[in-house]
């Protein structure tokens, strides 16, 4: 939606990790959010969708599966820290180019929309499409 969308995936965000890769992801929202806000982490690499169960998320030195994020109401993603998506997938070496498509959907817990009896958090989505050199 705005200039911060460009900040989500930096040029050096992709790293080879031995058994796969990691991707550093930055927030496109202006404030820190609880982990429960991380509702969409849609990742495709070189045109191939990464299943949610192949992914873990590292925040504040802790690692979560995607379903575990739903219980993370007491842990915040500080606005300037990248979170790290860790994916097991062979074939990632430093220096290689890979195309990354990433959909980040943040549920904004203080902006509620919808009819009075059925209000729910706004979903702020950001889409990134980048070709990155693996670090």
């Amino acid at each position, binding site marked *: *939606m705005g200039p911060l969308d460009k*900040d989500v995936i930096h040029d050096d965000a992709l790293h080879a990790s031995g058994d796969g890769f990691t991707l550093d992801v930055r927030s496109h929202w202006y404030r820190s959010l609880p982990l429960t806000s991380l509702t969409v982490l849609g990742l495709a690499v070189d045109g191939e969708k990464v299943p949610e169960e192949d992914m873990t998320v590292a925040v504040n030195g802790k690692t979560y599966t995607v379903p575990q994020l739903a219980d993370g109401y007491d842990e*915040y993603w500080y606005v300037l820290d990248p979170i790290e998506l860790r994916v097991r997938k062979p074939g990632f070496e430093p220096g290689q180019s890979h195309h990354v498509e990433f959909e980040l959907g943040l*549920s904004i817990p*203080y902006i*509620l929309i919808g009819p009075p009896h059925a209000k*729910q958090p706004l979903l702020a989505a950001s889409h990134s499409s980048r070709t990155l050199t693996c670090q």
Partner: protein
Amino acid sequence: MTATTVSLPKLGTTLFSFTLEMRQRGYTLEGMIDQVAERGLGPGLELVGFQSLRGYPRVPAEVISAFRDQCERTGLEPSALSMNLDLGLHRGRLLDEDEALDYLEPQIAVAHTMGFPVCKATVIPTRSFLEGLVRILEKHGDLKFGYEVHSPMAVDAPEILQLRELYDAIDSPLLGWTPDFSASMHSVPPSLIAAHQQSGMSRELTDLAIEVWNSDTTMPQKFERFAGEAPALGATPADMGKLQMLLTMHGRQDPRRWSEIMDRVVHVHAKFYGIDDHGDEPSIDNAAIIDVLVDAGYTGYLSSEWEGHAYTDSVSGWDMVAGQHELFRRLLSERAVRA
């Protein structure tokens, strides 16, 4: 005839204006606060807790004392802490009243410890919630609370009328308002239209947006007209989202109507979107708003809130806020002469 002295509002800045600048390499909170002081953008200093403070609302004692020392050293005055009531904290349900008060209390406590006289957030609009809120505010140094009246709200929006009644019924000096200038604009910001055109929207489409914004119709009617006419002008789903945001984020309340709630105003958000070649804000009648504030005897802060960063990174937030301060100094001195 003796000269009358008139009490004027003070200037200030919220660090939210520098949302993009804080992403730059080398950013530190201390460095940013020093810049506010060096550029003369105080004395009021507002920040968003969840934006500026790591670990908020659990802020280490040494961070709090460093903040207080820095304000002392620079002459900046903590004006308001912007908090958040994250009612949608849990997946699939909203916080109930007790949980919501428990969520706000540590934020109110840290606002007080940091030296802010005012805090702001949304509320659950019930008497029991507001009474609970007052008890917490009293416990933490009689901190004042300023509910932000922000577009698409206005002083006469049903939600605000309901809160006005509750405020009157409870009649606590701690419950107040923060008018946000986004609610009382006379035009769509030219900088926003330019950004939308740059992102590929046609002139016809942005003209339609402006026409719909200017029409005396309800929000659902505006949305409906958009949905009917915009696709034929090439609007993509992403464009539709942006244009609906345009309708929501900018309101057309008459600035003079702020007078209706001035008796409980505790803080002011001087929202703005650009400064033109003449030094004026092209979409907001700041002179009219300042008249209302001065007439009501408001001597709190005009907290400059540059929000153009939501759609453009082509200008510096620092330059924008400096431009608005210059405008305010001119308008306030003109007003002082007239008084």
